[in-house]
């Protein structure tokens, strides 16, 4: 790398441009220099003024390029097929009552239990790929083996993506700008195509359609959630998605879950909404910091789900009538 000119470097590894941009280094006009020559053109006053350390920047550039190459390569090399939780203990030190819990891609598992029962800790154990080194003593296996430390330490390869009702968009961007930015940070080869794909998916989930030029901060609650879910399903690198409730209004929750599992995600969903909890084939019951039961949704419960969905449809239809200004009949 040290002998390459900036022009050669950018031609071979275009993502290097972002390193220079984020470090506020304007390289235009210097393309025929090597990175070291470029940094050497700054006077000592400029270096001090801009708080730059050329040696450190060169080392950081090499590291950044290596991380990006790994990041691009990993996408194909290591698909996650299974996530296994090996039991630990609850807050009282009691061993958890299951042997080995293996979740597969495209599986939905719900998590139920009172507030403070340990749902966050379970999620943190998965996110950190715990190896008996957290308060619960649980161990996490990926594809039946102890996970590669990259799941723990890489900033671009997080095991878990999270969606919750409290999450908002805070960027001052349109939907298009927002998706474009996310696609670029993920080094997506075709940001325009993936933006269209996410828009189509999000509008299928949202009760009311929104456009690409809508500012993300003016989306309704349901539209925001729809966009977050579609974006997480299609563009997030994380193979596991943890959902902390999905609001009832303005979003098709069944389709939302279908979208996530269609993207080969493992979906863990903390919820007390029977419609969602029963959509999962299994549910984990958490109490006092430990998983105390693993229940498989029974045929009777699935039948119950059908009834509940009918009720839900009645309420949804009434809501739609209200929105249109009609009288409820």
């Amino acid at each position, binding site marked *: 790398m040290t002998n390459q000119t900036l022009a050669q470097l950018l031609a071979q590894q275009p993502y290097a441009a972002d390193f220079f941009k984020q470090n506020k280094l304007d390289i235009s006009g210097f393309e025929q220099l090597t990175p070291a020559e470029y940094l050497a053109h700054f006077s000592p006053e400029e270096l001090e003024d801009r708080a730059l350390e050329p040696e450190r920047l060169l080392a*950081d550039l090499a590291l950044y390029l290596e991380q990006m190459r790994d990041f691009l390569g990993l996408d194909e090399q290591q698909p996650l097929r299974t996530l296994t939780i090996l039991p630990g203990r609850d807050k009282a030190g009691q061993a958890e009552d299951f042997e080995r819990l293996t979740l597969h891609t495209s599986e939905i598992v719900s998590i139920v239990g009172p507030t403070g029962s340990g749902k966050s800790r379970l999620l943190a154990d998965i996110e950190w790929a715990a190896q008996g080194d957290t308060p619960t003593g649980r161990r996490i296996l990926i594809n039946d083996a102890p996970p590669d430390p990259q799941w723990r*330490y890489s*900033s*671009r390869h997080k095991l878990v993506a999270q969606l919750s009702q409290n999450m908002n968009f805070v*960027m001052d961007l349109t939907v298009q700008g927002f998706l474009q930015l996310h696609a670029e940070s*993920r080094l997506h080869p075709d940001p325009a195509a993936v933006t269209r794909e996410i828009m189509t998916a999000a509008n299928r989930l949202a009760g009311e359609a929104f456009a690409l030029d809508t500012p993300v901060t003016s989306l309704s609650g349901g539209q925001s959630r729809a966009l977050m879910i579609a974006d*997480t399903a299609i563009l997030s690198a994380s193979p596991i998605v943890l959902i902390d409730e999905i609001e009832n209004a303005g979003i098709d929750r069944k389709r939302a879950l279908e979208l996530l599992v269609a993207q080969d995600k493992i979906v863990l969903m903390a919820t007390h909404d029977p419609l969602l909890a029963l959509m999962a084939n299994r549910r984990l019951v958490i109490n006092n910091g430990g998983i105390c039961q693993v229940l498989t949704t029974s045929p009777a419960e699935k039948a119950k789900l059908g009834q509940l969905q009918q009720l839900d449809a009645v309420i949804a239809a009434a809501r739609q009538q209200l929105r249109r200004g009609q009288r409820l009949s």
Partner: protein
Amino acid sequence: MNLTIVSGPPSSGKTAVILKTIAALKSRGVKVGVVKFDCLYTDDDKAYAEAGVPVQKGLSGALCPDHFFASNIEEIVRWGKQSELDLLITESAGLCNRCSPYLKQVKGVCVIDNLSGINTPRKIGPLLKSADLVVITKGDIVSQAEREVFAARVSSVNPRALILPVNGLTGQGAYELSTLLYNPDLQVETVQGMQLRFPMPAALCSYCLGETRIGQAFQLGNVKKMDLGEPEA
């Protein structure tokens, strides 16, 4: 004694993160003390005291808080040793985003929050760029995409750092952070003779010395002028 220097912009969640991390360390029998640096005002020392954490407070007043830090860290480390701490954490808020209090050979942690905006990693200098560990807070209230973009940008300006999301409210990630902060094999006896990772910016113009009058005639020392170019019309 272990020493960790925690820094970050004001209101990024440093105190909340440190308190949750100390709770995790305490459960493992590690004795932690904190020194809180601030400029004009803080009552975070009360929050530490309430949590039973030995705490000292330093207000820099008219001085740059980072310069104040550098002038006091030696005595503070002595205090920590005398208090028989296993881990001493210093907490300071960067004010102008140009100074950074990190020392070579001492773990430096930068706390920044997702709400500060995706251009923030670009705006913060050595405070972020030379940290060993970057803790990103307030991830529970922004979207997954914004968290990913923010972390990617932090990684672009500091590819060496380990990036850890921590939730200062629920404590999610704090246990994990605690395992990275305390290492019984790492002992700091004194910081005398250690070096700052990055020099603090040159100052000492007439305004540093109390000048209040505006105008070229009153400007002495290290004075820098903006380049405004030629008037357009």
